[in-house]
């Protein structure tokens, strides 16, 4: 599958058309659980966490990307996040991942003269991310 039509929604804002790259990470903390007598390390999995990294084409036009992201950062709002591999309907071939997140860091302006204005954000999960096929 060529990744060209990912669907990313923050609350009611479909920001897909700003997305240059998207990476959804999920991770479990590992806790050592080996004891005397073990010849191999043993681990158990602890707390889970997730992040969504987005590289975005920036826009300062009214109602466009910067005006969407700024209040998420400034107000510390909890954001309802949805991401799918394509914008097609959710299905077994096009699952969706949903969860709540916050935006703890935002770089509204970065770059050199002549660059396309862009910004990279990492949404940090608050609670679970859930995979669904319907």
């Amino acid at each position, binding site marked *: 599958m060529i990744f060209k*039509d*990912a*669907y990313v929604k923050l609350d009611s804002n479909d920001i*897909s*058309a*700003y997305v240059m790259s998207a990476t959804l990470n999920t991770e479990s903390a590992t806790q050592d659980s080996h004891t005397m007598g073990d010849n191999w390390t043993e681990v158990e999995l602890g707390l889970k966490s997730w992040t969504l990294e987005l590289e975005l084409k920036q826009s300062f036009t009214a109602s466009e990307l910067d005006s969407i992201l700024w209040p998420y950062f400034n107000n510390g709002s909890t954001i309802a996040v949805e991401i799918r591999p394509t914008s097609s309907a959710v299905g077994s071939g096009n699952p969706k991942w949903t969860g709540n997140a916050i935006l703890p860091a935002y770089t509204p302006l970065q770059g050199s003269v*002549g660059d396309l204005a862009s910004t990279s954000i990492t949404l940090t999960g608050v609670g679970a991310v859930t995979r669904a096929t319907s």
Partner: protein
Amino acid sequence: MSNTGNIRIIREQLAANVATIDGLRTHQEIPEQVATPAFIVLGPKEIDFDKTMARGTDRLLFDCLLVASRADARQAQRTIDAFLNTKGAGSIKAALQDDTTLNGACEDLRVTRINDYGAIEIAGVMYLSARIEVEIYVDNT
């Protein structure tokens, strides 16, 4: 904000931006014959599709040509040089970037470089020319 993304309209508007320069003929396409001095939109030499998801943004690289008669070699250089000034009334850079949205045809543009300053043959006739590269972003949303 959606743009037309129409190559023909982009050609028209690039020529229209430059038409503000006195004494410079403009052509939105390569003409059969060239009356000099002339600005010619050669066309998109490169189109990068899908700079963002959902067909949001494409990047186009347009090549344009400045052409002057070589009948008098020194005058040809002076003619071309005047249009290559980095600012001022006759500046190609300034004229092309006077409306960086090309009247809505694109999201933004930048004249990135001038190169290939030298002789060129068009329809069997030698001219002095310089190539102008214009980077254009189109918002398809």
